């Protein structure tokens, strides 16, 4: 080998059917068409869902989301009770889960030695891996009796002057569903919060400690406060997950389409009514009404996820510019 043997071949090699340029554009085209297939899939999903619920939209219009009368036999459908049930259970779940998750994330990121933190993180993510049907089963046979025997009586005695804590508890009901939801979204919020805390530069922590802050004050000043918008984003994503959760809720909420003040009473959510009735629905109007319920649920989760995306995007951009 020496340099006199240098041969140049610059244009297309005859060995190949296609030039490299066309190979590259072809592969890019292929990838792009797969991308558009997936985008098309979501579009078709939205279109089909709307089309199927069309006769219900025509029949009930806006009344569908302002009335709560739901009777498949008489073919009268109003979905307000389900919207209410969905929002209430998710809201209580966030109230329970968000503070807990933030504390757990702080504990793992700021207090624990590395290996304990990793193990804890792994265990928390294991909760996320448990199928929701298992949560439902456990909620039905383990949690519901505990709510009936201990939690509900305690709440009734302590805060019984509030209407939401009045009335009997049968175990299954809004409160049980909310607790199950809270357990299920803790991992989501925790791992997102951990990511948010990790991004805080360690020199900010050191600056706070150098000023004589206790660890609590350090976490408050240097970790929690600058991460607030990220924490909100994490909670909103958790909310999005809670809104759409189906099986666990369907098994413990009691499935009664009524708006009752007491959180001990049974209720129903958008997702649970679909799970309960879709397979057995016979009339076209019933199917359409259930599809419309699905569409409402879709729109709600879409909006919530969109907000979360916006908050997190805003947050990461701010971090990036810092």
């Amino acid at each position: 080998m020496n340099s006199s043997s240098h041969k140049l071949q610059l244009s297309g090699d005859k060995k190949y059917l296609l030039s490299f340029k066309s190979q590259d554009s072809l592969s890019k085209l292929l990838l792009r068409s797969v991308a558009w297939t997936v985008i098309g899939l979501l579009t078709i999903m939205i279109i089909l869902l709307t089309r199927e619920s069309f006769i219900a939209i025509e029949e009930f219009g806006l009344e569908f989301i302002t009335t709560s009368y739901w009777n498949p036999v008489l073919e009268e459908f109003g979905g307000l009770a389900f919207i209410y049930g969905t929002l209430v259970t998710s809201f209580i779940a966030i109230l329970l889960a968000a503070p807990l998750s933030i504390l757990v994330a702080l504990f793992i990121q700021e207090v624990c030695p590395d290996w304990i933190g990793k193990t804890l993180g792994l265990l928390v993510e294991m909760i996320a891996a448990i199928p929701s049907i298992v949560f439902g089963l456990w909620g039905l046979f383990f949690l519901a009796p505990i709510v009936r025997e201990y939690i509900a009586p305690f709440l009734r005695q302590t805060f019984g002057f509030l209407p939401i804590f009045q009335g009997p508890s049968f175990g299954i009901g809004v409160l049980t569903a909310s607790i199950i939801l809270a357990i299920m979204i803790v991992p989501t919020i925790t791992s997102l919060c951990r990511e948010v805390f990790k991004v805080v530069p360690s020199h900010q922590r050191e600056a706070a400690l150098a000023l004589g802050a206790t660890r609590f004050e350090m976490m408050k000043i240097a970790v929690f406060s600058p991460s607030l918008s990220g924490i909100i984003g994490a909670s909103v994503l958790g909310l999005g997950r809670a809104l759409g959760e189906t099986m666990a809720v369907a098994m413990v909420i009691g499935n009664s389409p009524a708006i009752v003040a007491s959180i001990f009473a049974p209720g129903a959510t958008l997702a649970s009514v679909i799970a309960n009735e879709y397979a057995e629905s016979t009339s076209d109007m019933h199917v359409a009404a259930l599809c419309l319920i699905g569409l409402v649920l879709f729109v709600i989760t879409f909006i919530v996820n969109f907000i979360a995306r916006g908050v997190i995007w805003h947050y990461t951009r701010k971090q990036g510019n810092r």
Partner: protein
Amino acid sequence: MNEKQTEQKVTLATKDLHAWFDDFHAVKGISVEYPEKTINAVIGPSGCGKSTYLRCLNRIHEEVPGAKASGEVSLLGQNIYAPHVDPVELRRNIGMVFQKPNPFPNMTIFENVVIGLKLQGYSKKSYLLEVAEHCLKKAALWEEVKDKLNRPGTSLSGGQQQRLCIARALAVNPPVLLMDEPTSALDPIASAKIEELMTELKKEFTVIVVTHNMQQAARIADYTSFLVLGELIEHGLSSQIFTNPKEQKTEDYVTGRFG
């Protein structure tokens, strides 16, 4: 420009070469000739476009989204920016070594060296082994790795990885070897080894090296180009650039008063 240069065969020559990143004009009309079997250094303050310039020479610059280049670069007399030239095919004729050692992480030392040949359709194991030994010897790495050719390329030290990358670039026997700050990620001892290797490689190849280390350029390069803000300020024999520059800016830079 110089008598010695006109006697020698020119391997690579650029003529009015421009390069852009979106709207940013990074290289502004550079024309230089590189004679056969020489080491040519490109120096300049950081951000002067020297890396971009080098990356135009094997048309890898245009792979960055938003980047484009125009002008003429002739390799052994052929313009590589001519419309019929396939940039992928072109790159097989030019070796390139990067700032960070970057052996392919999923390949063994042996596979890393011969990947270029394999791509051109050579598959006979005995031939590939022969080439691998030849190239690793040229890259002064053979003695260190001959017993562990099947270990991953990333298991080597930084300096060894860089020599592996040089061997990988040599395997296709390119007339030109482009090196983009090949020693900036290495410690002084490993750097010295690479420099020594470059003077060896000069016997067979034309080397164009971008460096921010002026001492390095002065030590090893036959010719040196000095770039500021994408413009070629001065090009000439290293001895002249570093001892007797014609331009004030060059003198300021090489004496450390600027940049």
